[in-house]
């Protein structure tokens, strides 16, 4: 080729391939050198300050209380256990937040598309207000301005068996008695039966074209069987009702104000973003699809369920995933109002007490990384399941 004749007077530096290699070698060298430099500084600094390294501290007693713990925890327990407690708090608030935010988002997104002018305007105001105000400010608002102004326990606000005061929301706590296994068994059996029913109905419809109201009948099935199991086993649930004593409310289940504030702020804030995603998803489905469905004679509910929703979901799921990820990461803001989640416990108290910044911050990053990865793997699986199967 003619290349041979020109290559002699062509500088090697002008060759794109060579330049790419040189650039990458330099880049790699810089990255390696900077990492090495930082690491050696780190070692020197740690040695100077007498900070020990490694994860032995996880076995040492933590010595600080954690107010909200779903598993047994006392001050005598180890840092490792405190970490688990905090991890559970983070996961619980993230999952509950995701569920609530999705409900709020779907409702608000549909409301923005409503025929009713007033409803659509109200939903718009909701969305535009909440998503343009920082989440931290909203959390502070719920915690310091709303929940902190509730009355002291002595003057609790009472709704039936629910008490509302500065220390949280008190509700009846269900206590399951011995026979409750039967109820759970009944519930599980009814769910399996419903799934079988739905599969059977679908198969029969494909073969014969005959339609069977599978969803409604399985709902009935679940309710009837579970109720039956309750009656047979003699209602094995008791409620521990909160009791008002002179200065306090005792018993029942307590939702601490920190938890409520973080949950409300997270779900209303993320709900506003999800509302926009839902709205955009539904609007993205061509109006012709709806018209075509109608001309095939589908009624409105079937049009929505079989035609519009599956197509809208394809647009909705990817951005929804990133909202879920944001919510999980934003749960770390709970640290600012003393909700004992990962950042507050590990990067706050544990770090301050042990001084082992690298390990604690690394641990936190690892957990959030794993959490993010789990959510995105699940959502990618769901996305693949919902995606368009083309030829």
């Amino acid at each position, binding site marked *: 080729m003619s290349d041979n004749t020109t290559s002699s007077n062509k500088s090697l530096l002008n060759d794109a391939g060579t330049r790419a290699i040189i650039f990458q070698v330099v880049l790699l060298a810089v990255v390696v050198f900077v990492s090495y430099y930082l690491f050696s500084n780190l070692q020197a600094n740690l040695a100077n300050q007498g900070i020990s390294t490694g994860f032995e501290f996880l076995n040492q007693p933590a010595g600080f209380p954690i107010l909200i713990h779903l598993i047994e925890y006392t001050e005598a327990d180890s840092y490792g256990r405190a970490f688990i407690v905090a991890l559970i708090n983070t996961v619980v608030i993230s999952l509950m937040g995701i569920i609530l935010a999705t409900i709020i988002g779907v409702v608000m997104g549909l409301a923005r598309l409503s025929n009713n002018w007033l409803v659509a305007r109200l939903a718009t105001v909701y969305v535009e207000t909440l998503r343009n*105000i920082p989440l*931290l400010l909203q959390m*502070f608002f719920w915690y310091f301005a709303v929940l902190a102004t509730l009355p002291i326990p002595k003057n609790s606000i009472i709704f039936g068996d629910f008490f509302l005061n500065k220390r949280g929301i008190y509700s009846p706590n269900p206590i399951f008695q011995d026979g409750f296994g039967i109820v759970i068994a009944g519930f599980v059996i009814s769910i399996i039966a419903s799934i079988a029913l739905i599969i059977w109905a679908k198969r029969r419809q494909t073969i014969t074209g005959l339609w069977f109201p599978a969803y409604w009948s399985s709902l009935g099935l679940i309710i009837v069987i579970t109720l039956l199991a309750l009656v047979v086993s003699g209602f094995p649930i008791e409620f521990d009702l909160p009791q008002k004593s002179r200065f306090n409310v005792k018993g029942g289940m307590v939702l601490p104000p920190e938890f409520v504030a973080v949950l409300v702020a997270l779900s209303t804030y993320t709900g506003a973003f999800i509302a926009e995603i839902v709205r955009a998803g539904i609007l993205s489905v061509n109006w012709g699809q709806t018209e075509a469905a109608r001309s095939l004679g589908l009624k409105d509910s079937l049009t929505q369920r079989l035609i519009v929703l599956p197509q809208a979901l394809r647009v909705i799921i990817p951005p929804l995933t990133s909202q879920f990820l944001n919510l999980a990461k934003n749960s770390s803001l709970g640290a600012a109002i003393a909700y004992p989640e990962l950042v507050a416990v590990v990067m706050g108290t544990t770090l301050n007490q042990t001084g082992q910044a690298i390990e604690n911050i690394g641990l936190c990053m690892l957990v959030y990384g794993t959490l993010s990865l789990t959510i995105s793997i699940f959502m990618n699986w769901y996305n693949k399941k919902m995606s368009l199967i083309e030829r």
Partner: protein
Amino acid sequence: MAKIFQPSPSLPPPVNSVGAVAWVRQNLLSSPLNIFLTLFSFYVLYLLIPPVVEWGVVNATFGGESKAACTAGGACWAFIGVYFEQFMYGLYPAEETWRINLALILLVVLIAMFAVKAVNKLYLSIGIIAVYPVVAYFLFAGGVFGLEIVETSLWGGLFLTTLLGVVGIVASFPLGVLLALGRQSSMPIAKSVCIVFIETIRAVPLITILFMASVMIPLFLPDGMNFNKLMRVLIGITLFSAAYMAEVIRGGLQAIPKGQYEAADAMGLTYWQSMILVILPQALKLVIPGIVNTFIGLFKDTTLVYIVGMFDLLGRIQAATHDSNWLGTTIEGYAFAGFIYWAACFGMSRYSMTIERKLETGHKRN
């Protein structure tokens, strides 16, 4: 004479199908469900608006020097008035705040000069990007031309919020472009470095990055070398939003048809020429909404610096509401902060819609 057919004048449309009545029937009362929703909405409005107006306007106290002035039972806006300086400038010395105002006016004037035809826009851009930050820095920090030195720990309030936001936005944008180009590059090492960086940052919350900036960076630096907390936090915020920016821009790069890359190559343009002259102008235009959303997110996220002990607007308000002379003014403080953040973010999103329309050159499918 033949009788000419005279059509009788057309009747006016039925009252029910035009004007306000029709609008109400169609939009508020079209079905039983709709009637219910309308009534429900009015109930919600009834629950919200009268108490808020009563609290915030009717029974509110607007002037006054202390809590004692607020006797009407409504909002105590006097609180905002008394603390206004602190909310705006933090603990910046009161006699020096003209420097902040001057820097702000300078910036506004420089940006306004874009509208003047006689000014060379290239020089103006260089002035804003390269010269202005230096001038602004010396104005804020002092230490030259007899300006008194003001420690960065005294910077605060809306000034700090704006500073964090603007520096974060300006610095993260080019970094984000570089990272996005790196991720799209065909060089394996450059590509993996960018991917690892972007994905690591995106997997963790901003708080961990800020903690890292305030606690860990000093550990990584050699003895004696250290820079102040504001700088470290700025680096943290910039790196954080650069990773998000990179992903947004990557979306734009992927949307450009392959023919554009090939055409640029065929013209004999080098990599950087083809990127700067052909690909990026198109790609960036496509992702303006995403870029602005990242900016808005960054602006809202600046509130997190409060957690690592810096007093931005929210931090100063939080501190002020704990003043024992002003107990019970929390809602007023949050309402004020909320309004400022809301106005800034809402303004940005509207502005992005405007430039989107302005740059629209008709390649969009309709």
